[in-house]
C-alpha cells in the first residue's frame, strides 16, 4: 500500500497574527506520484511546505494534515522527518564549523537508526555513500569536508539539498523552489536527482515558479495555488498552458467556473 500525505481543508496563519495564508487547501499525494505546485508570488506555496514540516512560525488553525494515517499536527518537526518526510529548503541555513559529512551522518543515523543490536553505519561506508551522492549531483568530493552550506553559492546550496535527499532517502519529499536561481545544466542535474528516487516508495511535491523544471521532471499532476487555495488541477499539459497564458488566464477560468480565486 502506498503511503499518502493527506491535506484536507488546511488553514494556516502566521503564528501570533491574524494573517491567514492558506485558506482551506486540500491535496492528496501518494507515494509513486510526483505533484507540481505552481502559483504566483505570495500564493502560499512555501507556507504549505513549511506547514507540512511543522515550522514554528506557522500555525495550523483548521483542517487535517496526515502522513500514512498519522496526525502530523501532533508530531514535532524531527518526528516528521523520522517518519519519512523531507523538505528541500528554498533558503537552506549555513552551519559554520559542522562539516557536511558530520551533519549528514548524524541526520542519517537519526532517520535510519540501526536495528536492535546492530551498529550504526561505519564512517568508511558512509563516506562512500556521501561521495557517490556528491558525484551524482556533479559536486566536488571536497564538499564532504566543507562546513554545511558555509560559503556555498546559491546553486551549490540547492544541489546540496538534493544531495542530502539522495542520502536520507525520504518516503515523501517537498522541494521548495529548488530550481530557482539554477542555470539549465544545474536544473537538469537537480531534476535527475529527483528522477533517480522515483518509484513506488517515493512521492514528491515539487513547488516551482517555472514550467521549465517540468521538462526534465515529468509530473503526474500539476496544481495551481492562488490566494491560499488550489484553484486548478491537471496534468503536464496544464503547466504548458500556464506558461503560454499566464495566471490571468487561470483567474478567468476559475471565475468562469464560479469559484473565487
Amino acid at each position, binding site marked *: 500500500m502506498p503511503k499518502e500525505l493527506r491535506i484536507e481543508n488546511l488553514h494556516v496563519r502566521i503564528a501570533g497574527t491574524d494573517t491567514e495564508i492558506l485558506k482551506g487547501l486540500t491535496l492528496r499525494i501518494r507515494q509513486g506520484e510526483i505533484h507540481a505546485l505552481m502559483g504566483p508570488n505570495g500564493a502560499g506555496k512555501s507556507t504549505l511546505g513549511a506547514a507540512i*514540516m*511543522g*515550522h*514554528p*512560525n506557522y500555525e495550523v488553525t483548521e483542517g487535517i494534515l496526515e502522513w500514512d494515517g498519522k496526525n502530523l499536527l501532533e508530531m*514535532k*518537526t*524531527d518526528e*516528521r*522527518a*523520522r517518519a519519512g518526510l*523531507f*523538505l528541500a*529548503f528554498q533558503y*537552506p*541555513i549555513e*552551519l*559554520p*564549523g*559542522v562539516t557536511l559529512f*558530520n*551533519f549528514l*551522518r*548524524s*541526520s*542519517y*543515523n*537519526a*532517520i535510519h*537508526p*540501526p536495528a536492535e543490536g546492530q551498529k*550504526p553505519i561505519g564512517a568508511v561506508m558512509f563516506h562512500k555513500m556521501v561521495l557517490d551522492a556528491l558525484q551524482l549531483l556533479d559536486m566536488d568530493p571536497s564538499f564532504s569536508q566543507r*562546513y554545511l552550506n558555509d560559503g556555498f553559492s546559491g546553486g551549490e546550496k540547492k544541489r546540496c539539498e538534493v544531495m*542530502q535527499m539522495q542520502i*536520507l532517502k525520504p518516503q515523501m519529499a517537498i522541494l521548495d523552489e529548488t530550481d530557482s536561481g539554477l542555470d539549465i545544466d544545474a536544473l537538469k542535474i537537480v531534476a535527475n536527482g529527483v528522477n533517480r528516487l522515483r518509484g513506488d516508495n517515493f512521492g514528491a511535491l515539487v513547488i516551482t515558479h517555472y514550467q521549465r523544471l517540468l521538462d526534465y521532471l515529468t509530473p503526474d499532476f500539476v496544481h495551481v495555488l492562488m490566494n491560499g487555495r488550489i484553484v486548478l488541477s491537471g496534468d503536464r499539459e496544464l503547466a504548458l498552458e500556464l506558461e503560454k497564458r499566464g495566471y490571468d488566464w487561470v483567474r478567468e477560468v476559475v471565475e468562469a467556473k464560479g469559484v473565487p480565486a
Partner: protein
Amino acid sequence: MSETHDRELLEGLDTYKYGFYDTAEPVFKTEKGLNEDVVRMISAKKNEPQWMLEFRLNAYREFISKPMPNWGSPLLQEVNFDDIYYYIKPTDRQGDTWEDVPSYIKETFDKLGIPEAEKTMLAGIGAQYDSEVVYHNLKEQWEKLGVTFLDMDSGLREYPQIVREYFGTVVPPSDNKFAALNSAVWSGGSFVYVPKGVKVEIPLQAYFRINAKNAGQFERTLIIAEEGSFVHYVEGCTAPMYSSDSLHSAVVEIIVKANARVRYTTIQNWSYNVFNLVTKRSVVYRNGTMEWVDGNLGSKLTMKYPAVYLLEPGAHGEILSLAFAGPNQHQDAGAKVLHFAPHTTSNIVSKSIAKGGGRASYRGLVKAGPNSKHSKSFTRCDALLIDDRSQSDTYPVMDIEENQIEIGHEATVSKVSSEQIFYLQSRGLSESEAEAMIIAGFIEPIAKELPMEYALELNRLIQLQMSGSVG
C-alpha cells in the same frame, strides 16, 4: 558525532557527572579560616626554606591589605574567606605508581579515567587531591632527556635554586588579591622544566580534584621552557557538588625562552559551587611562542584572563578562550596580551555560550607599550546566546602607547535562530541535538586545537549541558 552515541549521552544523566565524593578523613588539615599561624603551619608542615616562609608571610600581608575587587562579578562578594579550609592533606605519601596511592583516592581517579589516559596518550601525569599531589609520574624517555615534571613542593625541595630564581617573578604576590592569597597558602601544582632544545611531543597532564567540603585549592604551577624547547601541558579539574561553596585560586607562571614554544590547555569543569579565581601569566622572549587554550565549562564563578607578556622581538602570543555559562553560572573569562617589544604579534579568539540564564563575559586587554613598534594584534570574540534569559557582555580594553601598531578587533553576538533549529529538526535531529550541533560548530575553531581526546571530552561536556541535565 554518532547519533546513537549522542542519545546514550543525553539519557539518564541528571546530575553533574563528577559530583561523587569519598568520605575518608584527611591525615591533617588546618583550622577553618586564615591567619598568620595557618600560613606558618603550612610552611612548617612542608619543611620549607626560610625564604619561602617569608614569601608566604609577605603575600599574606598583601592579601589582607587588598580590598575585594569591585569589578568582574557581583558573585565575588559571596566568597567567605573565613569559611574555608586552606590546607587539607589527604595522605602521608605520594605515589609514583598507582599501587602506592591510597585506595579511596585511587578509586576517585579511576572513575575519572586518569590512569587510562596516562597509559595511552600522555608523557607524564600529576594528580592533586585537595591540597597535595598524591601521584606523579613522568615517562622514562623524557626523564632521560632532562625533562623535570614534579609537584611544586618536590620541585622546591629538589631544585631550590631554579625555583627561587623564577618563583613569583611572573605573577608577584602584589599583583591582585587572589594571587596574594595563593602565594600565602599555595600547595601542590606542577613544576616543569624543559631543557634547551628538548621537544616533549606528547602532553603532560595535571589533574586537580577538590574532594573535601569547604575546601580551598591553591595550586601553584611554574613552567620553564629553555631555548628552542617545546612542551604541551594539559590540566583538567573536577569537584563534588556540595551545598556550600569551595574556592579554587591558582597561580600559573610560565617562562618561554627564545625560540621555545609552550602550549597550556585547560578544560575547567569544576562543580557549580566552586569559585574559580585564577591568575595565569607567561613571559615570552625572542621568537618564542606562548599558546593558552582555556576552556571554562564548570564553576559557579570563574574570573580568569590568561596573559602573555611579549618581551623581545618576534615573540608571539596566542589565546583561545572558550566559556560556557549555564544556569546560575558566570564565566568572566578573557585574555591579556602586552606587547613590550617591537615586531611582536598576538592573536586572541574568544567563543562564549550562555544558556538558561547563565552569563558569559569576555574581558580582554591588548596593550602596546613603549618600544613596541611594528607589532600586530588581532582579537576575535564571538558570543552565542541560546535563549533570551541568558547574558553576554564584552569588555575589551586597548591601551596603545606606541605608533605603527596594527590592532584589530571583531566581535559578534548571535542567537540560535528558530530557522537553524527548524532546518536541523527537519533532518531528524531533536531540538537539544540541534542546539548541541550548532554549538559544536560555533566552538570548532577552538575544539580543533585540542588533542582529539580532549575535543571529544569537550563535545561530550557540552552535550551534557545542552541536554538540560545540568544546573
